[in-house]
């Protein structure tokens, strides 16, 4: 029976408290508010007075729980209840407390809602799953097992019919039912997204049940949905990002040593705030910094005086600059949920490349065989250098003669180089066929034979019979590199038919790898 609110959002702290919506919840000991409306005024006044006191304290509790969201919380309470209400759209950037404010406000809404159905579109990745989740949340608790056996509607028409049936039963007593659609913006990238979003946004017109209040939560601005709304556009509530002072208040909440922490924040928060204003990211960035800040202190409980503060400031000052440039780097062995916290922050980074920059490079030495490193380097060279220069760079003399080729450049060719450079920046690393990669690989391994003397394939590079050995081994390494996203395999070229590869690593990482195997990489990179 505890399904009405957010069975899926257990990660958020809001859910830990008892469920506000379920009618049988123990906190709901107050009599139902509707009959009291008919009481004679004098009797009502006394009761209302007592209720008024109660109401004020709950509103204070709500505002206490939502620091910096005073205006939004009061707006929410005013617009959500009493029951006949126009649809509502909460919008604002990520980590501005939209969902939390809404769920808490629904708990404080008077008269109490009969049922709250919460559907986060991010965790319900198809219309069918969304429909099923809503209908199970709305079905009476006793028949919840039976409703699983019911056919889940996948057509919008069936869904609306089923939804209307479920809601008509619930709101017959004149109590409100709240339907919450969270993460509305993700549905825009779904198949037939227009259809589903239009359906959701026009539910008010389709259902025409005054006791049903629709609430949408989205991080995209309302203009994104303007063309999809029906005759009634939702009321908007905007959640702005927190200001510095609000962020400080949030961070200070519940800290064991507030004095120490506030002196830390007065040093560290402002510079980090210039980089990002998202609380979740700030928390992650500040936490290790605070540990560093406390290092000189023996006792963490002590209250710092002026001299200690100055000492601590001098201690933290050099680290601050470093931290600013390392913000958001994910530690290699981050626990799973920590990773999740990060990935929930950046929504658009599904394609973000893995091997690019992070602190990964420091651990690289221990995880890669030497031949894999050479393969990585040759892939890097193949991606960066134009194919026409391969012969010049890798001829028998080992590329040492490319210094002689310097020519004086005219203005025209300089301009051309500029446009070439622009183009290069736009295009990113190029693709290359497997043959070119293997050729470069052979060249650079043969150049640094001494380095390879302890590698298993040295003898087979020359001997014709051993060639197959090398090939199979290299192909294995190659697929490993592809799997770990250092290289990416692109669609096969329509003319040649074979797969093409691209290297995803940047120059810093490549140089680091080259250093670890003592390979003179910079000699081979073509500079314009």
């Amino acid at each position, binding site marked *: 029976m505890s399904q009405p609110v957010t069975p899926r959002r257990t990660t958020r702290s809001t859910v830990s408290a008892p469920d506000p919506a379920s009618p049988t919840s123990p906190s709901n000991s107050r009599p139902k508010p509707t009959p009291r409306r008919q009481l004679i005024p004098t009797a*009502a*006044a006394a009761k*209302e007075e007592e209720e*008024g006191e109660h109401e004020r304290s709950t509103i204070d509790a709500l505002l206490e729980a939502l620091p910096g969201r005073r205006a939004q919380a009061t707006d929410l309470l*005013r*617009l959500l209840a*009493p029951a*006949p*209400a*126009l649809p509502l759209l909460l*919008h604002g*950037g990520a980590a501005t407390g939209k969902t939390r404010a809404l769920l808490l406000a629904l708990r404080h809404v008077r008269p109490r809602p009969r049922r709250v159905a919460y559907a986060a579109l991010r965790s319900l990745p198809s219309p069918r799953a969304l429909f099923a989740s809503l209908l199970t949340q709305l079905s009476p608790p006793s028949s919840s097992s039976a409703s699983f056996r019911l056919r889940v509607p996948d*057509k*919008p*028409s069936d869904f*609306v019919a089923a939804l209307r049936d479920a809601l008509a039963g619930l709101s017959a007593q004149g109590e409100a039912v709240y339907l919450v659609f969270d993460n509305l913006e993700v549905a825009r990238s779904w198949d037939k997204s227009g259809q589903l979003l239009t*359906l959701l946004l*026009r539910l008010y*017109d*389709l259902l025409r049940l*005054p006791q049903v209040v629709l609430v949408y939560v989205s*991080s*995209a*601005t*309302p*203009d994104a949905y303007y063309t999809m*709304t*029906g*005759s*009634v*556009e939702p*009321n*908007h509530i*905007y959640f*702005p990002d927190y200001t510095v002072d609000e962020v400080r208040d949030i961070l200070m909440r519940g800290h064991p040593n507030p004095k120490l922490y506030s002196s830390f924040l007065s040093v560290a928060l402002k510079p980090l*705030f*210039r*980089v*990002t*204003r998202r609380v979740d*990211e700030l928390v992650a960035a500040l936490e290790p910094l605070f540990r560093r800040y406390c290092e000189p202190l023996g006792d963490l409980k002590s209250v710092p005086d002026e001299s200690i503060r100055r000492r601590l400031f001098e201690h933290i000052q050099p680290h601050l600059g470093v931290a*600013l440039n*390392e*913000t*958001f*780097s994910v530690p290699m062995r981050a626990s799973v949920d920590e990773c999740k916290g990060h990935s929930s922050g*950046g929504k*658009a*980074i599904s*394609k*973000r*490349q893995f091997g*690019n*920059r992070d602190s990964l490079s420091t651990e690289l030495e221990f995880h890669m065989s030497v031949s894999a490193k050479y393969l990585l380097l040759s892939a890097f060279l193949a991606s960066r250098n134009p194919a026409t220069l391969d012969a010049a760079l890798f001829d028998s003399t080992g590329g040492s003669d490319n210094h002689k080729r310097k020519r004086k450049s005219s203005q025209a060719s300089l301009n051309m180089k500029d446009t070439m450079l622009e183009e290069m*920046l*736009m295009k*990113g*690393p190029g693709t290359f066929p497997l043959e070119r990669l293997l050729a470069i690989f052979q060249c650079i391994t043969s150049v640094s034979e001494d380095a390879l003397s302890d590698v298993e394939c040295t003898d087979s590079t020359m001997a014709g019979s051993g060639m197959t050995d090398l090939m199979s081994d290299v192909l294995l390494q190659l697929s490993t590199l592809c799997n770990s996203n250092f290289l990416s395999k692109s*669609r096969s070229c329509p003319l040649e038919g074979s797969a093409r590869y691209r290297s*995803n690593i940047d120059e810093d990482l490549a140089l680091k790898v080259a250093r670890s195997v003592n390979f003179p990489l910079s000699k081979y990179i073509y500079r314009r």
Partner: protein
Amino acid sequence: MAAASVASRAQSVLRGRLCDPGFVHSALRSSPDTNYSKLKYLVASSVSEACNNSVLLLGPRGCGKAAVVDMVLDDLKKEHPDAISVIRLNGMLHSDDNCAMKEIARQLCLEHQLSFSKMASSDDNTEFMIDMLRECGLAHKTVLFVLEEFDLFAQGKQRLLYSLLDAMQSLTSQAVVIGLSCRLDADQLLEKRVRSRFSHRKLLFVPPSLDDIQRLVEHLLILTQDSGLRAKYITDYNSRLANIFIDNKFKGCLNSLMDADATTSNILRFLFRAVSYMDMESGFLSMESFQKALSSMQRQPKMDSLQDLSILELYILVCMHRLEDKEQSSYNFTSIMKEYRSIQDAYKTSDKYSSTVCFRAFEHLLDRELISFGDNRGRNQALEYRSVKLLISSRELAQSLKLNTTCPAVLQKLLDRERYM
């Protein structure tokens, strides 16, 4: 406290009114020359004269088309309780012909206490509908088809519209088709064979004029004595409201609201907000609540999210703007970084960050939809190399920099100098 409880009751009465389209449009009943009376005359005469008819109601969203249809149907149901059955379809749900036929059959069965077979084929359902129409005609019962989002039924083969309108060509049947659409050219979407069977009656709905709006506002907000509240409160409330109505500031509010969107639904939204912002201590609507409602409806989401940016994110936007000013046809994150570095080298500001940090800021901007990728090509390419574009104008950017108090002066200069060059 007593005042608060009266106020909250008054508030819920008002909210109930604003959310009830029947009440909102009930003023139409009294006046003679409205779409309501026209539609009612049309439908009532076809019911009483036992003939077939079809009509389209056209007009922008939120002008009360559906509400008028509901009111007409309610009235007719009261006048001819046995002679009417209503079938409602919505183009958004039933644009598929088979699905629509099934829905018609289902509603017909429900209306006439027949058992509905889910397994029936589309042809069976069509046949059933034609039979039912004939039976109803013989029993002098009119079937009213209300087709909301009519334009969506006109997609595809229009088999449903054809079979509906074709069934109405026979003398025995007795049906009225009412189509509602916000596309003014909805009748032009019909195929020839459908169009020739359609009556070409159209009722046009237009947004109300300022006078109408004022009358509507009074109709909605002034409490009547029978609303179950104390008489003294009601007279107090009404006199205060009358003072607000003659206030020029209030007229200014209504005017600026109507400049943007003059549909009834927009007015309702405005009034709903104003009523929700009612001062619960005194229990009356005040000018402030109307002004607050207006200001909350006139927010500019783009400007709001520009105000929320961190300094680094603003730097990136300014860099992008500079690149666009240089008439660089397309650019990506790496070229933005190049520009950013050149700015940092030239001005030596304290805001020089590594490209990882800048990339995260870049992602935030993508998240907020202030910038977006220029094309869908190269989906499998790294994000840094995909070309991007700004989704804000230079005026918006300049204005937000001006409003931002923490914004460094260098940024302003960088943006301004571009303009004079």
